[in-house]
């Protein structure tokens, strides 16, 4: 009964390829997020969706395209992968509008671009 699950756990690919990471939550949350964690462990918000609507879109290359088919799913597609895209990508979810609602994270996807 995993709360936030993302797949794959590891992704190794070559420069120029296109890849996707999938995320699903069964917590009944209405908001989902994508974070990027770099090699120095710094967490950076990329996108956030509330009820399938994009509400946060930070300065991210347009090679990154999120897609939320419903409020329980948020996928991340990355085109033309670059070496600098290597990082751990976390999906998370929460209740929007509830300040005390913590983020629940998936286990992360380690992306390695060679």
């Amino acid at each position, binding site marked *: 009964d995993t709360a936030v699950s993302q797949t794959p756990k590891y992704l190794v690919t070559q420069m120029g390829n296109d890849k996707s990471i999938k995320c699903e939550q069964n917590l009944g949350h209405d908001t989902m997020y994508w974070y990027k964690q770099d090699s120095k*462990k710094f*967490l950076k918000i990329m996108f956030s969706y509330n009820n399938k609507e994009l509400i946060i879109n930070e300065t991210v290359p347009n090679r990154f395209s999120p897609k939320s088919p419903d409020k329980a799913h948020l996928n991340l597609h990355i085109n033309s992968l670059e070496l600098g895209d290597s990082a751990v990508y976390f999906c998370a979810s929460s209740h929007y509008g*509830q300040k005390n609602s913590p*983020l629940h994270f998936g286990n*992360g996807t380690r992306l390695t671009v060679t």
Partner: protein
Amino acid sequence: AQTVTQSQPEMSVQEAETVTLSCTYDTSESDYYLFWYKQPPSRQMILVIRQEAYKQQNATENRFSVNFQKAAKSFSLKISDSQLGDAAMYFCAYRMDSNYQLIWGAGTKLIIKP
């Protein structure tokens, strides 16, 4: 703009002893939430404890407690009776009242010496 500062990149403590991780933040908001998350080597992000700014009583979760000083904008995490399993990166986060986005600190790596 809101910022969160964790001034200790790394801390170490002897097993069974007490350690305090510091976190300061800058905000003009009066009501907000603060969180501590733990990221062990497994890379999973785990909520440790949370505190509402309007509550004067410091939050406690078993061996974890906070020292919340609102006027000083300080939110330190105290870990009592440190255990080997406490070894992890610890992140402090502030939830904005305006759009519920989390602002993250850079993290503190906690090392437990056996």
